[in-house]
């Protein structure tokens, strides 16, 4: 046995290095049951380190644990107490509870406090523990003769329980208050303050009581940790809000902020700096003015060598900016980005840059630091900013500027310039990551990517702020032309998609058409990522048209050759893209290629003497891309468009549609693919000119589906689906208001559009209706708010900038609320679901506890509840009896194995291994289902027969779940 214990000790050590020792769990149990304390201790240690929720031998340990808990020797007794929290499962908790409770009144304080801690963990997996244990724990807390360390332990546990169900602990407040005032134990005081911070929102009267001792503590305590926690408690407990306006409220607020400033500026200890920033971060949400008074120290922290401190300061920066300090703050951050060497660059790069420090950004501590870094840690790569940090800075800059629809930005030219600079600073690693996700993650990766976030801002500015649109287009144009020369940061590719859109959409405002077109059809563009190429493809014809229409309108031979040359170049660019691996790129390039070919034909066949130029070029194609100006529309606005009374979604648009389709199929059955292509693409522009209803063009469209889309859709789809798709595609093509794929809103309105068109006739332009309505509904609001903006801006600067707000319909408050709330709650539930699915690794699941009330008299539990509880208990008891039976069987079986100990150990081992392997997936899936400690219904895994037991338990748990969630939300928030 000694040998075994020694071997086990070695195993534990190896386990620490990552070697699996789950195969030895039976031996662990053997050593645990050794009568010798030293061996027992090794065994328990092994159990702590190696047992997992799916460890099967745990079942066999129950009796052993029971025995050891009631052992007469304190050391032996404390072994299971320390071990239990690691291996506890709800069934184990149930059977051990009765043995643990007497230990609360053990004569040894050591045992008492460990028992309390163990009971806490028991309560997490088996909330009923508290029903019987709580009165005793409370007694211990109330008992003033009690050993101080035991009281401290109780306070710790109560604090842990406290935030889960603060209401139940209000009754303890007087005693806790006494402990706080004359406890003398800093650790305990910290915990009590933490607990009070969760209690005060429930009991406003506490604030008054707490204020004097807290102020006193803040003024006098020498312990920094206690000081910090006091301030933290004041902030978190809502004491600042609670005493708003009162004299002592202001006093304590300024006292706190002053102390925090002292922690940052005077002490020089990075830890204090960090926690002080943390506290500032909590204040900033409610009292930004208090924080911005200390802007100087905080901005000093942004340049701190420590990344953690920087990040905190950065987050703080976003909260405290206003229109006065925005430019300074952002410039400073930009400076930092520029100066810090990229990880791959040489270290003294930073010094070279710091010569050109702009006066605006130059402030205390920046330059000496730059000089210090390369010398201080030449080998270490800490001075180089990691890519994630760079990304965070960029995101924060964007967030700061775009806050409240650019309320803080007064100079948009500066902002556009900043955006262009940011693109150059995007780290390369980020691009690699987003590139990796491939094209099936289009929308997702767009949000993730910083470069596209910048692009999004650029586009947003171009759309919303019409006065700087020219600037935005110029900036976008620069970006595009830079990309051709390869001088751009490798990470910024994604921004090009947005730049291309801006250039294409708003090109009328610039005269550099040819240059822009050049950079768009630069051969290098073909190697860009598919999403960028798509935007390019969409922008090319727009730019082409605007380039052509800006010329003198007189048509002559000279102009004819020039334009045909241009078109030929575009065709040359498009041709290789028709075989692009990405479907989207392929489709668009094929469409535009054919359009361009038709244009070329039209130009060639056009009479040189005619001064008007070909109709296709001057009228038809421009009409594709011009229409109503795009306005920003709030995401929820679409939903608020009132339903027209005569709208009927059930009436078929054409009752004989299938017939038409069939006829069409027959008509074109014999044609070759090329012919279909030609007829389709040749007919289309003509149709555009006459612009007939969508339904008329259906037959001629049919070939399209049987051509290049064939292998994807036609074969598998039903008639109806095909029909819908054709309609949608055709409508988009015919629709003069359809602009590229970038604009999601035009795509989403289609079902509407369809039906309305059929009912109202072709003349009504349905697409524009929502926009008109939106304008009307929101007029007052927009005017008012923009007025405010304007006034503010007038004060600052003479230039007026009008920022277009999101358009939305405000029918009335109630309707608005409803629509707002619905998605919010949806989101919340999704969030909750996600939370449950992906809980953090080390998280302890306590959801069961939050629904549990400590003393049933405290919370009005209805008779029904109690009955249900009893029924559950009964069921649980039944399940447990079953489990017990199985356990005994197992035990007997193992005893039998032991009895025939003559068999070599390997034989048993192999069998166990097999079993383990088989069961692992089961265990894991269960682990994910229930997560954490709760997943511990391991007993079921040991035998196939036990499966029903698990089922039962799960079933029982399920009905409780929604309850707990509600409780949680209500209780904690």
């Amino acid at each position, binding site marked *: 046995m000694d040998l075994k214990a020694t071997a086990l000790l*070695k195993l534990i050590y190896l386990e620490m290095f990552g070697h699996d020792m789950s195969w030895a769990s039976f031996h662990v149990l053997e050593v645990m049951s050794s009568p010798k304390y030293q061996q027992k201790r090794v065994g328990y240690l092994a159990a702590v380190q190696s047992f997992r929720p799916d460890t099967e031998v745990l079942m066999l340990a129950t009796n052993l644990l029971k025995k050891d808990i009631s052992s007469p020797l304190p050391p032996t007794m404390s072994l299971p107490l320390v071990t239990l929290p*690691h291996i506890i499962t709800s069934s184990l908790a149930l059977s051990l509870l009765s043995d643990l409770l007497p230990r609360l009144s053990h004569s040894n304080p050591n045992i008492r406090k460990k028992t*309390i801690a163990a009971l806490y963990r028991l309560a997490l997996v088996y909330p009923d523990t508290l029903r019987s244990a709580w009165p005793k724990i409370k007694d211990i807390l109330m008992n003033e003769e009690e050993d101080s360390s035991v009281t401290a332990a109780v306070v710790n546990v109560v604090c842990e329980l406290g935030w889960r169900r603060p209401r139940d602990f209000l009754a303890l407040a007087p005693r806790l208050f006494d402990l706080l005032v004359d406890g003398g134990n800093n650790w305990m005081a910290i915990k009590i303050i933490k607990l009070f911070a969760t209690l005060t929102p429930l009991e406003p009267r506490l604030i008054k009581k707490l204020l004097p001792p807290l102020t006193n503590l803040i003024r006098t305590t020498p312990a920094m940790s206690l000081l910090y926690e006091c301030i933290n408690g004041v902030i978190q407990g809502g004491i600042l809000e609670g005493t708003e306006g009162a004299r002592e409220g202001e006093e304590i607020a300024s006292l706190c902020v002053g102390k925090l400033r002292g922690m940052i500026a005077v002490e020089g200890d*990075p*830890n204090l700096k960090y926690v002080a920033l943390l506290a500032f971060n909590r204040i900033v949400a409610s009292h930004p003015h208090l924080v911005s008074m200390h802007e100087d120290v905080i901005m000093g922290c942004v340049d701190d060598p420590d990344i953690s401190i920087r990040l905190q300061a950065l987050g703080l920066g976003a909260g405290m900016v206003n229109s006065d300090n925005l430019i300074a703050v952002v410039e400073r951050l930009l400076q930092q980005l520029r100066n810090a060497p990229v990880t791959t660059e040489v270290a003294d790069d930073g010094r070279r840059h710091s010569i050109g420090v702009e006066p605006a950004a130059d402030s205390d501590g920046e330059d000496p630091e730059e000089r210090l870094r390369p010398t201080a840690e030449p080998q270490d790569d800490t001075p180089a900013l990691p890519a994630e940090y760079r990304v965070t800075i960029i995101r924060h800059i964007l967030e700061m500027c775009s806050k409240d629809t650019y309320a803080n930005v007064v100079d948009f030219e500066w902002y556009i310039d900043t955006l262009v600079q940011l693109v150059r600073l995007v780290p390369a690693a980020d691009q690699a990551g987003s590139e990796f996700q491939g094209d099936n993650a289009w929308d997702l990766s767009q949000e993730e990517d910083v470069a596209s976030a910048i692009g999004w801002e650029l586009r947003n500015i171009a759309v919303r702020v019409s006065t700087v649109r020219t600037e935005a287009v110029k900036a976008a144009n620069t970006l595009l032309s830079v990309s051709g020369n390869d001088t751009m940061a490798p990470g910024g590719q994604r921004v090009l998609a947005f730049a291309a859109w801006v250039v294409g959409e708003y090109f009328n405002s610039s005269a550099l058409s040819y240059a822009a077109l050049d950079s768009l059809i630069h051969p290098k563009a073909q190697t860009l990522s598919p999403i960028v190429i798509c935007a390019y493809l969409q922008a090319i014809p727009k730019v082409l048209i605007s380039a052509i229409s800006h010329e003198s309108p007189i048509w002559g031979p000279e102009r004819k050759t020039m334009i045909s040359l241009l078109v030929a170049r575009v065709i040359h660019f498009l041709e290789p893209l028709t075989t692009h691996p990405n479907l989207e790129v392929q489709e668009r390039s094929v469409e535009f290629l054919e359009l361009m070919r038709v244009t070329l034909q039209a130009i060639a066949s056009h009479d040189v003497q005619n001064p008007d130029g070909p109709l296709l070029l001057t009228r038809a194609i421009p009409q594709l891309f011009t229409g109503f100006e795009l306005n920003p529309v709030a995401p929820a606005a679409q939903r608020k468009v009132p339903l027209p009374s005569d709208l009927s979604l059930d009436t078929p648009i054409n009752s004989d549609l299938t017939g038409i389709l069939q006829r069409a199929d027959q008509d074109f059955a014999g044609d070759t693919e090329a012919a279909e292509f030609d007829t389709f693409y040749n007919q289309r522009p003509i149709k555009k000119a006459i612009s007939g209803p969508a339904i008329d063009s259906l037959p001629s469209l049919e070939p399209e589906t049987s051509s290049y889309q064939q292998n994807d859709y036609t074969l598998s789809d039903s008639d109806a689906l095909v029909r819908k798709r054709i309609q949608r595609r055709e409508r988009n093509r015919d629709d003069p208001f359809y602009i590229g794929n970038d604009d999601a809103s035009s795509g989403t309105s289609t079902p509407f559009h369809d039906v309305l068109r059929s009912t109202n006739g072709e003349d009504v332009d349905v697409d524009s209706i929502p926009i008109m309505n939106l304008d009307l509904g929101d007029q007052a609001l927009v005017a008012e708010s923009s007025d405010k903006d304007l006034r503010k801006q007038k004060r600052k600067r003479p230039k007026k900038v009008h920022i277009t707000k999101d358009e939305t319909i405000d029918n009335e408050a109630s309707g608005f609320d409803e629509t707002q709330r619905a998605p919010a709650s949806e989101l919340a539930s999704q969030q909750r679901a996600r939370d449950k699915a992906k809980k953090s690794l080390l998280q302890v699941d306590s959801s069961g506890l939050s629904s549990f009330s400590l003393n049933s008299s405290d919370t009005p539990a209805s008779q029904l509840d109690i009955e249900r509880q009893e029924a559950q208990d009964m069921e649980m008891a039944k399940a447990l009896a079953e489990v017990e039976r199985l356990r005994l069987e197992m035990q007997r079986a193992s005893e039998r194995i032991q009895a025939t100990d003559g068999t070599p150990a390997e034989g048993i081992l192999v069998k166990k291994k097999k079993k383990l392997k088989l069961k692992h997936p089961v265990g894991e899936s269960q682990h994910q289902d229930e997560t954490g400690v709760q997943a511990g219904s391991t007993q079921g895994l040991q035998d196939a027969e036990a499966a029903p037991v698990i089922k039962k338990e799960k079933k029982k748990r399920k009905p409780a779940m929604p309850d707990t969630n509600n409780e949680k939300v209500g209780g904690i928030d």
Partner: protein
Amino acid sequence: MINAVLVFNNSGQPRLTKFYTQLDTSVQQRLISEIFTLVSHRPASACNFLPLPPLLASPSPTPPGGQPHADTPSLITYRHYATLYFILISTSTESPLALLDLIQVFVEALDRLFENVCELDLIFNFETLHACLGEMVVGGVVVETGLEKVVGGVREKGRVRMRREVQGMGMGGLGMGVGVEGLAGIGRGWR
């Protein structure tokens, strides 16, 4: 509460791992190496709080400005003593500065127990190391912060340990064996 206590040396070899929730061994190792990479790149002048490693950070992105859920580990506190890093992973219900003190108490207690503690002591007596931690933290809840009481609590069983010091020679030999084996498994020489 405290979610995990880790001790590893300057080259990332674990000397003590204690997780207060049950985790797979491989996950534990990944977490340790992630934290080690974070911690080893920090200059001595930096503050003692770590950003969350990817393994912990990814599942639950905390909304900016909002309080993280009190059950999720959100705080990593570390301290560096000579060749060893002491790491505490905890939820937001613990006070960061108090945790720093806790590490200090832990190290001081070890120092008392071993009389001028060094990394070797922890390797050869890692059972005592666990016992000491067990006196201070039970199931993630801090039960004792008084130095005297912690040391006393371990000594109470330490008598047992001393008693075994007789066969303790064998124990020392075992320790050496373990040390060599463990390190050989990692493929690093012992220094």
